[in-house]
């Protein structure tokens, strides 16, 4: 049945560092590249060279401007894919059981063989993480690269999601967020990682790290002039320098 698994052995997920993300879209495109030949293959593009192209994407980059009274405005790039929620409404609303959460690692997947394409799961997801493939008539979504992270045909070091291994800035991490000893868990603790839309009660696994404020590293915010600042004279300055530089 499509109820959520009673227990979760692992909570695999992503952590996205908004302090570092430069909004380059690499993760989004690499995701498409891997997945168009992966578990949910193909990720169709409709009217690709026409007037109104669209296609199936599992990962997208948004940009916001955040203005605070103290720090002024900040541009924030904001990548978003499925958050592999612990209490995933997209699973419980699914009438066919095609949408399910894996017990072994918490990955939320859609079975392409049984999905009827009713789209209800996409309505139930607050984060817009589900992608209906018009051409295939089924729902697709981020698979957390389930066909890469366990893939025995590639070296162990490559067994991370495509979006993570490609990110040039290193703004994405992958790991078991259910394991308190994991690096990724510690990273979240250390950087005050947070949930998106907690009020939606989905208990997302993926976490976001807020931009850091780096203030007060410097002792001085002005240089001490070696001469009288108001009526500056090159010659006096030179004399002092000549003495000092000996």
């Amino acid at each position: 049945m499509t109820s959520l698994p009673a227990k979760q052995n692992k909570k695999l997920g992503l952590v996205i560092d908004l302090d570092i993300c430069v909004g380059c879209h690499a993760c989004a495109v690499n995701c498409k590249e891997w997945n168009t030949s992966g578990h949910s293959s193909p990720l169709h593009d409709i009217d690709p060279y026409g007037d109104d192209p669209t296609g199936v994407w599992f990962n997208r980059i948004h940009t916001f401007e955040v203005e605070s009274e103290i720090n002024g405005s900040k541009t924030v790039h904001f990548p978003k894919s499925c958050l592999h929620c612990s209490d995933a409404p997209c699973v419980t609303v699914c009438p066919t059981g095609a949408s399910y959460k894996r017990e072994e690692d918490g990955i939320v997947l859609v079975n392409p063989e049984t999905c009827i394409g009713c789209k209800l799961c996409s309505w139930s997801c607050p984060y817009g993480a589900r992608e209906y493939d018009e051409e295939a008539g089924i729902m697709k979504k981020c698979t957390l690269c389930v066909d890469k992270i366990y893939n025995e045909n590639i070296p162990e070091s490559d067994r991370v999601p495509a979006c993570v291994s490609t990110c040039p800035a290193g703004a994405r991490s992958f790991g078991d967020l259910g394991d308190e000893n994991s690096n990724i868990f510690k990273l979240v603790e250390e950087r005050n990682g947070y949930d998106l839309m907690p009020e939606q009660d989905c208990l997302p696994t993926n976490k976001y790290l807020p931009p850091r404020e780096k203030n007060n590293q410097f002792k001085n915010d002005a240089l001490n002039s070696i001469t009288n600042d108001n009526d500056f004279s090159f010659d006096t300055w030179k004399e002092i320098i000549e003495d000092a530089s000996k």
Partner: protein
Amino acid sequence: MHPSKSIIFFTVMSGTGYGIIICLSFLALIAEINFNYGFKLSLILISFLFITLGLLSSTLHLGHPERAWRSFSQWRSSWLSREGLAAILTYIPLMIFYLLWFLEMDIFKYFLYSASILSVITIYCTGQMYASLKTVPAWHNVYVTPIYLINGLSIGSLSIYCLTRFYESEIQHLYQFTLLSLALCLLLKITYWFHIRTKSTSSINTAIGLGKDNKVSFFEGPHTGKNFLTTEMINKIKKEKANFLRLCFIILSCVLPMYMIVQEATLIIDAFILKLSFFITLVFALIGMLIERYLFFIQAKHVVSLYYGENKV
């Protein structure tokens, strides 16, 4: 939300069909409902067709209609699954009722009652399917399911009422019942419209999670063109247009039928014209219902729109 034609058609049509059955069962409780064959046959045909066409349209709207049967499996958790199941189950007593009623066998009532209970359940499931979606605050409230029920009931009873005009027969209490349900329908809908003016707790701030005190504004979306989310979940209607459509609904689906029912006696018109005008009233009421359903979708904002430029939903 995207106002999908097939879903609008489905919910209105099958709602009307079920409404006829529910209304009939109320009437059967308190009165005799043994009419002439023509009348019966029309009711049977209309309710059956409405229910069935609605269900068919909702099935064909699926990406994979041929797999629709799979949707029975998740009745434990999914309202959509429950709805499908209930809809199919309804057919069993419903078909028996049709037969027995047509054959004038008295036990038809029990099947009518069962069919009607299942119809209520079906509509309830439909309503709950929407009402349980936390992501759409305009749906996630106590009004939605009752509205679905009362909409079905009011238009169902109006259908029967119009048929009585057509066949020039009378059913006891139908007059009051129809008026009452139409009034309730109007009342509930207006209350609902007032309710959805309040915004939910989700906002652009909670969506990207960067502090309550910051002013967050949308700068660039992930695509300069459309995508699945923007076509399916983010649809807008101008306020003026929406208000106009609301008025249309009020007039077409509530005021006009009520006026016709109440003022029938005072209308001095030819019998044929009268029949025709009741037919038109019903058609208008159905159109009004389609409009209501259209608004139900297009005016419902999904929280995902917070990622695409909306500040509040």
